[in-house]
């Protein structure tokens, strides 16, 4: 699951897969802004066939958080 998440993030944010780690977030990544955020959310929802709540969308601002959110919604 983590690999799939990294793949989607890498594709949408145009970031190298190796750079996606515990510290990867909207703070650390210049191209992760509000426009790319919505692209990312929609792509993750489609990939895992899940639907994020409003809180989830607001909190999905780091790789760590995304893993936790996707994990919760897919179990």
């Amino acid at each position: 699951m983590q690999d799939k998440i990294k793949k989607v993030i890498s594709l949408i944010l145009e970031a190298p897969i190796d750079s996606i780690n515990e510290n990867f977030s909207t703070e650390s990544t210049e191209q992760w802004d509000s426009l790319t955020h919505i692209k990312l959310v929609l792509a993750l929802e489609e990939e895992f066939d899940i639907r994020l709540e409003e809180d989830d969308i607001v909190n999905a601002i780091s790789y760590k958080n995304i893993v936790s959110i996707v994990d919760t919604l897919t179990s």
Partner: protein
Amino acid sequence: MKYSEIVSSNRELANTIQSSSYKIGVLNNVTVSNLVDILEYTLRIEKINGVVSLGNYDNIVQDASLFSNNDAVIMFWEIANVMPGAYYNIELLPDSAYNALYKKLVSEIDIVLDTLKEIPVILFNKFTALPFTHYFINENKIDRLCTQLNEYLEEKNQTNLKLVNTEKVFAKVSIEQSIDLRNFYLFKALHSNRYFIEWSNFVRPIFMSVSGHSKKALYLDCDNTLWGGVLGEDGIDDIKMSSRDSTGAIFEEVQALYKELANKGVIVGLCSKNNETDVDQVLDSHEDMILKESDLAIKRVNWENKADNIKDMTDAINIGLDSVVFVDDSDFELNFVKDKLKEITTLKVPRQLFSYPTLIRENMELFYNFSMTEEDVSKITMYREQKKREQAKPEFGDMEGYLKSLGLVLTIHVDSRKHVKRIAQITQKTNQFNLTTKRYSEAEIEQFFCDEKYKVFSFSLEDNFGNYGLTGLSIIRMSNEDKAELDTFLMSCRVIGRNVEYAFFNTIIDILKKEDVKELTGSYLKTKKNGLVKNLLNNFGFEKGDEIDHLILDRFIPKKVDFIKVDSL
């Protein structure tokens, strides 16, 4: 296809695609960021290198000027967001405020359309409040506002403006799958990825048309394609094509659709394994035939293989195989043809006959023509006249004699304003006899008329059999006092092979000499399709240079073309 797959495929295509960028700007007052990859991908798989840039959110009027040099601009101007909370506030506006809002929007529309009046294509989504009002029986104020704004747009006489009826896209996708209100409330992103995909598919024919990629010819089999049954076995009395029975009704309907295409200028032809006289008898005398001899530009009804026939027909009308669509009911025929002629598009008559008309409707926009002109509508007449010319050919032993017998008359026009639409169209559609393949919009051609530095030469051709219409163009740019540059030299496929290009060029040189031009430069810009004119400049007498070719006008020796009478207007 998943959105992430589209993004990744789009990136790959961006790296490998050969054609130059087709720049599209999107002016918007809602978030449409996902449209970028989706629209680019939709165009790139058709070999159009669409590059989409978004204007700043809710800065439609301000950002219009950013795109005044683009190839196309798309308007995603949502009524839902024309003022804060428009989708619920408009209902509560008193009349005075409603009228003020209408006036404001109309003046903004005027500014935007004026700023963009020179670009080739503006795709303007018609205003609709459907996502918010489809629950209600009566028309709401916001619906009324959309209707008024759309009426205003429809009355605008701007030739580069194309209104897109997005309600058709909603109808296809469903409102539920088109609109995600969660995303609208959070990010002002009204439309779903699914909507953007279907919207892009819906407008794709427009882009295909303006970049010369739309299909031009439709070839039809006969048995079980135009009528139910096999003519050779069932006989003329038992083939079915009338609504008197359920099978015949289907064939009557598809014939009507094919006739509709013929009326719009699509070249419709027959390619059937049958005795020619049998099929002619059906065409001439069967009272239920909707498609008639006069609708058909060309026929190959014989017992040869269909790939050879199709190649032959396509060469005869001087188009590319990639402009052809072929319909047949036989897997064998379709596979055979597709195997030998990879570029053509094939359609199979479905086994479930009730799906046949739908299949045709789904594919009619392959022939979409962005700017219909009189030439398009009278094209069938021209191809019929061409049929007559071909029938006359065998009488003459030699080409010269034959060409002389045609009685060709070439009429040259210079900076002819009344032909501006056709001139622009011919730059967009001509791929083969085209030296530099520069595509121009009507506004750009108008510009050339006003600019002293440019001379726009065009010609109309007719002969004893009929009128070909305006079929050739050359744009000359004066660089300084006595030098000029050949920016454009092209001719429609229908007039190739008659040495008309020489008569045209001779006249152009005469006129340039009178303007004291001493030297003309030019170059051949190679494309996949214009190998035909590889040696044109050489044939005209240009000397080859390192980067460009030169012609010293004093040394020009005109090629003799006395079987063509030239009228200069």
